């Protein structure tokens, strides 16, 4: 597969990686590597998967700690129940599956078996938003909205390999249930090694006076590219990266929004119930009346196809962010 990003392509097989965009460096399986490193100093960490170990990058952990790894088969309700039971014996289970299964299929277990008791389980969910061409069965386009409704659940949508590694460590160190979106395979490096991830904290990555882009997940990579391109056109666009969806950093969002004339939200998720909704709620609560343009997926099921084709069609590209901001002028 060549890197011809927006040309028509073909649906890739499960586990095949798209080319990394924009000539960035990449890291293979940053989550699996980070978890395995942690496993050496943390004997309480246990790995779990539901027949998707290969596709959620957790197999390095299995190979290093076979006695602390369980593959429960295609049974996501049981995956979460087993994780809850392990947590009750003092373990820190990292349970991987796809976002669609962790949310739509296992929801009652996440809500009642985990979150209701504030158990120390980390769900790591592959194929977030529009990162697979397998259609609505595999595209977790509404997972953030669903999981936001669960009291006490921490929700992370990381941008790149650096952040995945940092977030894996951070969620292992913080007690409580977590839902973390996973970028798997060859994951681009967007942030410098010195980047600091902190649960619940947004990071201002670019200052800007005309437009403020508030972004989460891999859309922050697109937002940064868009801001750089816009600067060359004389438009000053700031970027606030919000990797923690819950608890939401309302203070940083309100402060950032106060300093720009127009806000654009970008997310790898439907524009209902996720980042856009959170930003609008935050601004309303803070009494900030500013226009908000929402970039994200429509409230509909997405078809099958090549991921670059689909991301271009549904606006999850830097080009789409640039076009939306130019249209504001």
């Amino acid at each position, binding site marked *: 597969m060549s890197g011809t990003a927006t040309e028509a392509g073909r649906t890739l097989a499960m586990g095949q990686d798209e080319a990394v965009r924009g000539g960035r460096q990449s890291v293979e399986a940053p989550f699996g590597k980070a978890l395995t490193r942690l496993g050496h100093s943390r004997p309480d960490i*246990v790995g779990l998967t539901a027949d998707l170990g290969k596709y959620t990058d957790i197999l390095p952990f299995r190979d290093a700690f076979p*006695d*602390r790894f*369980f593959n*429960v*088969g295609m*049974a996501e*309700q*049981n995956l*979460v*129940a*087993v*994780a*809850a*039971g*392990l*947590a*009750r*014996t*003092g*373990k820190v*289970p990292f349970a991987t599956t796809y976002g669609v299964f962790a949310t739509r299929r296992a929801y*009652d*277990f996440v809500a*009642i*078996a985990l979150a*209701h*008791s504030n158990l120390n389980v980390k769900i790591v969910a592959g194929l977030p938003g529009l990162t697979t061409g397998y259609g609505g069965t595999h595209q977790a386009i509404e997972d953030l909205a669903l999981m936001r409704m669960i009291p006490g659940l921490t929700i992370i949508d990381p941008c790149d390999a650096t952040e995945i590694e940092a977030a894996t460590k951070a969620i292992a160190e913080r007690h409580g249930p977590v839902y973390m979106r996973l970028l798997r395979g060859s994951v681009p490096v967007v942030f410098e090694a010195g980047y600091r991830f902190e649960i619940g904290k947004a990071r201002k990555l670019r200052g800007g006076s005309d437009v403020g882009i508030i972004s989460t997940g891999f859309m922050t990579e697109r937002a940064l590219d868009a801001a750089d391109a816009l600067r060359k056109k004389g438009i000053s666009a700031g970027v606030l990266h919000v990797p923690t969806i819950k608890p939401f950093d309302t203070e940083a969002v309100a402060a950032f929004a106060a300093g720009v004339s127009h806000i654009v939200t970008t997310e790898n998720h439907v524009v209902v119930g996720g980042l856009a909704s959170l930003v609008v709620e935050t601004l309303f609560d803070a009494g900030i009346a500013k226009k908000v343009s929402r970039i994200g997926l429509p409230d509909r099921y997405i078809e099958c196809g090549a991921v670059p084709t689909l991301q271009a069609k549904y606006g999850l590209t830097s080009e789409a962010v640039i076009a939306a901001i130019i249209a504001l002028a």
Partner: protein
Amino acid sequence: MQRNSPPGSADIGALERKAIQLRRHMLTMARGQGQGYIGQGLGIADVLAALYFHELRYDPHNLAWADRDRFLLSTGHYSIALWAALAEAGIIPVEELATYGADNSRLEMSTLDTTPGVEVIGGSLGHGLGQGVGQAMGLRIDKSEARVFVELSDGEMQEGSTWEAAMSASHFKLDGLVALVDCNGIQADGPVVLDMEPVADKWRAFGWQTSEIDGNDMKAVVGALADARERNGKPKAIVLRTLPGKGVPRIETAEKSHFFRIDVAQWDGIIAEFEKTVGASQ
């Protein structure tokens, strides 16, 4: 600390008297509340007596003891029976039983794990066994001898997650896990609406060492629990045939009802009938 006794040492008569005491508590609680899942509670009383006063290893003064045996009540609405057992075991005060189902009481109609002695939130049926599987895995990692007992019901077997858990328990050879399958023949809509027979064959087919007994026969219950102690690589299932309302003829013979509600005045008659039955049996 309660300790396992060798099978032959069980004082069956003493355990039967404990079961009577649990039923007496439950009837008093149901009278106070005017309603409740009394049929299920009376039906499971013998099993809870055998567990809490013979089989389980636990310390009522140190509930967080890492090597305790766990009892998970998956059917949270059987709480009336669990509260009675926890009170008799010295984990909660007997006087507190009078608050069953009242606002702000810890003794809810359906169990939450905020009450001392409750190992898991029950009531969303199909949740218990998988959590028992996870606990058995965790105890094995810790090389603990502690075992995990999970009560679930015949109606609950209709939840697919029960079988997801059953598959994984045998696959991972969790021989310290014991499923207590309460087959009392009733569920929310009345008599079991979807035939689950043959129950024991299903558990055997899923790789469990399975026995099937009269769950209201104390000697049989104690014997089946003793047989389930063997660490032979297989999880254990005990299929318990229980009679809803056991011990109170008027409830035993009532229309099979998931939720029993009668006038406050009639409770006194029911309790008198229970005491008469108890007196005749001793």
